């Protein structure tokens, strides 16, 4: 069930209405039923995987706590080892499921190629399995819980149903944010009273998410898909324009989902973590990664980068760890080398940024460069955007070879004239649709810049008179209805991050 489907618009109010009618102590059971129903709308059988991962991590948590307690009370070192072994088993089983469904074909295909280099011809099996929606998200969330229990950051949840709803909570089940047990799990035991102000605020958040997804992302997708699916015909500046637009498409698509998720959870009184904080206002690539897909980046930081040694083992290891984290992050996004290259490039930019930081500082001092000047911030933001956007080519292109050909086309094809005739309006978006797209991107940037400056628009709106607040709410809803890409003639565009 997609957030931008009629089904969800029927499902969600029913869930919320009954949620507030049910006594507090039973609400988590209702949410569990709804979450599994939500998931099973895609594929009934794959709900078993969700259940499987839940069972594994639930019992892992119980065992880890038991062994850890025993080790602490009796000082038995082997018990601590046992706890560690349970963590390993939990990781192996969960990552095994992920590997089987997401990476098996990729692995066998590459193994075949590798062996053929040394003249060994082997026919490896291809499973061609349908990727379970959101598998990377819920498995990471469940594994995060295992680690948190192991580290003693939280106590293992005894109530299986409560734990199951933590793993499967429908607003963020299929595309995040990847929640932390420390933040979310305890909220299923809290009492959430109906609070009109909070509900209003959350619904506004949802409306903004829908705007980002349906008005901006899905509109941009029409243009980007046209160029990327035929980049031989639409080379040079077409690719450049499409790539810049793709940066906003993927942002609005993914942030749109996260915002709807936060809003949907908020309506029921749950607080999900922020997943995006104005990423294109970032002044460096490391800064970008503090603002982009925060739940995943912080997951990798806590559960991979730090266990790898983080920055505690010297500069070289620090840089290496960062590169590893980003390569894995790329691989997490998809079983394709282009994702790995995308991750690797981002890791490389971060490492280079850190290596050259002292020389940059030195040069700026010598030149009398004003670090805090607005012009500097704008320049840094543009540079960062261009670097990040360059890596998006690998993310969006069908494969690595295509990405390289597209880069070559951008550097060689001379067709700057497309900006002066109506060529750009012939790729699925006519002139007016193109203007709507540009205006909505400007609106998005204004919102992000305000956010960056510490101006919370929702808070500001709260302080306004009723007529103005309602005007904004209604304008937002009606603009989604009018300008949104939905209805007949359009397939309900799935969120890009569902495939991960």
């Amino acid at each position: 069930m997609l957030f931008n489907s009629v089904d969800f618009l029927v499902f969600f109010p029913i869930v919320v209405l009954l949620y507030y009618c049910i006594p507090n102590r039973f609400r988590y059971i209702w949410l569990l039923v709804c979450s599994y129903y939500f998931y099973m709308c895609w594929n009934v059988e794959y709900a078993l995987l969700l259940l499987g991962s839940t069972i594994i991590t639930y019992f892992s948590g119980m065992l880890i706590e038991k062994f850890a307690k025993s080790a602490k009370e009796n000082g038995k070192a082997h018990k601590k080892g046992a706890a560690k072994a349970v963590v390993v088993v939990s990781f192996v089983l969960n990552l095994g499921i992920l590997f089987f469904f997401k990476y098996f074909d990729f692995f066998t295909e590459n193994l075949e190629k590798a062996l053929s280099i040394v003249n060994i011809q082997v026919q490896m099996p291809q499973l061609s399995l349908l990727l379970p929606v959101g598998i990377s998200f819920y498995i990471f969330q469940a594994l995060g819980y295992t680690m948190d229990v192991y580290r003693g950051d939280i106590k293992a949840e005894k109530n299986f149903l409560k734990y199951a709803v933590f793993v499967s909570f429908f607003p963020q089940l299929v595309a995040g944010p990847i929640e932390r047990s420390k933040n979310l799990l305890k909220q299923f035991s809290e009492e959430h009273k109906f609070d009109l102000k909070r509900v209003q605020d959350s619904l506004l958040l949802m409306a903004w998410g829908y705007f980002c997804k349906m008005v901006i992302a899905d509109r941009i997708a029409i243009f980007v898909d046209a160029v990327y699916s035929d980049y031989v015909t639409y080379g040079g500046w077409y690719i450049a324009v499409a790539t810049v637009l793709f940066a906003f498409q993927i942002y609005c698509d993914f942030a749109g989902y996260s915002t709807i998720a936060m809003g949907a959870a908020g309506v029921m009184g749950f607080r999900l973590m922020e997943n995006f904080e104005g990423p294109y206002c970032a002044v460096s690539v490391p800064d970008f990664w503090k603002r982009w897909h925060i739940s995943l980046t912080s997951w990798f930081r806590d559960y991979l980068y730090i266990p790898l040694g983080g920055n505690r083992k010297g500069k070289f290891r620090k840089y290496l760890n960062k590169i590893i984290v980003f390569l894995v992050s790329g691989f997490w996004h998809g079983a394709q080398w282009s994702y790995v290259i995308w991750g690797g490039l981002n890791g490389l930019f971060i490492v280079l940024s850190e290596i050259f930081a002292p020389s940059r500082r030195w040069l700026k001092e010598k030149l009398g460069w004003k670090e805090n000047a607005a012009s500097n911030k704008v320049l840094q933001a543009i540079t960062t955007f261009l670097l990040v956007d360059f890596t998006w080519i690998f993310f969006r292109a069908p494969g690595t070879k295509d990405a390289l050909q597209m880069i070559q086309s951008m550097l060689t094809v001379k067709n700057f004239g497309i900006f002066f005739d109506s060529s750009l309006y012939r790729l699925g978006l006519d002139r007016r649709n193109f203007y709507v797209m540009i205006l909505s991107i400007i609106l998005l940037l204004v919102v992000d810049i305000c956010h960056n400056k510490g101006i919370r628009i929702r808070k500001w709106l709260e302080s306004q008179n009723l007529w103005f607040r309602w005007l904004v709410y209604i304008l937002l809803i009606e603009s989604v209805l009018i300008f949104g890409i939905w209805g007949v003639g359009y397939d309900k565009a799935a969120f890009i991050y569902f495939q991960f």
Partner: protein
Amino acid sequence: MKNTKVKAIIKSIISVVCFLVLLAVCTYYVDRTLKDKGNYLKYKEFYEEEEPFDVLFFGSSRMLNGVYPMELWDDFGLTTFNMAQHSEGTLVSYWQMKNAFHYNKPKVAVVDLTLLQDDKIMEHQEQERGYLHKALDHMPLSKIKYDALKDVTEGIDIGEYLFPLAMYHNRWNDLEEIDVYLELPQRKGAEARVGITKMYEAEWEGRTVATSINTEMYRLDAMVELCEEEDVQLIFTLMPATGMSELEAMGEIYNYLELYAQEHNIPFLNFEKDKGVVNYTTDFYDNSHLNPNGAKKVTYAIGEFLMDNYEFAPKSAKTQAAWNQAWSDNLGAKLGEMILHDDHENLNYYLLLVNDNTFCFDIKMPDVSYIEAFGAEDMFAELKLTKEDIIFDSTEDAVVVTVYDEETGAYFHSAKFIPKK
């Protein structure tokens, strides 16, 4: 304390309700503005009629382009409405009829059977899906609409029809002034296509009667049953649409329908069989639709039949005034059509519009060769214009047609046609 809490709850509920009402009102206006106006305004005219119609017409675009209710008002004083819709088969016609009777039950219902088909969405392409929207979107939300949708779409994509904004919200890109200032077309549902296609008369005689019953016949049974229940007199028609492939293929079925109509004691006006009503050289827009010249003839023939066979209640002064007003507005529409075809090139199209019992006209030209120059021989024959009726003026370099009001003789419009060299 408790009192304050109750007050807060009541305040919250009022606030939510007010907001939802405001949102619904805004969405209603957005929906109204974005709707396909041609279709929306057509049926708006139907729903706004206060008194029962004398006759309602149902069927496909053959009927839509074949009967002009305003002419029936002018010639016979009948209040009628053309409910027909493009590509509408018997299945949708049945539901149109059921819905229409719910809001305005006429004395007579005329159903054209030219397009005897089952229009289930499953078998249709995108274009037909659009036609289904045209036929069904106007129905107010009701059990009838829901049943119709369930039947026609077989439950697939029912939401798209219940909430048609899904279909046309993209029209923000094509909005025109008419989308904001809604002006009723005053055609009482009919459509007029101006153009001429020379046709041939297909042989009717000698066709055999179909032995097997068409799968859609049960829809006709349902229509017959509905009209009996509602005490509405039913008439079947077959519009002139010679040369069309359906006729070639379905001639046998149409013969069967005649027998069916006889069996159920339903009059069957078969304009395809009864030649002589339309002129095959001048009265067709294309091979399946009549142009205004042909439509007026068929309309008149139906009007005569209705007046000869049924008794219609006298109209209230209010209805008469409203229809007379509609008639004057319709004259305005006719002038609009003339201006639209006042292109100095197509004399035939202009004469097509001028051939109307509301008008009289004179025609000037330098010499008779101008008729040939415009390829207007057939049209002149149709208008029964002889040399004596033409004013030959050697000072003119074109054909000049001046149109007057038949009753008052007042000037209406004139156009000049210069032949291409």
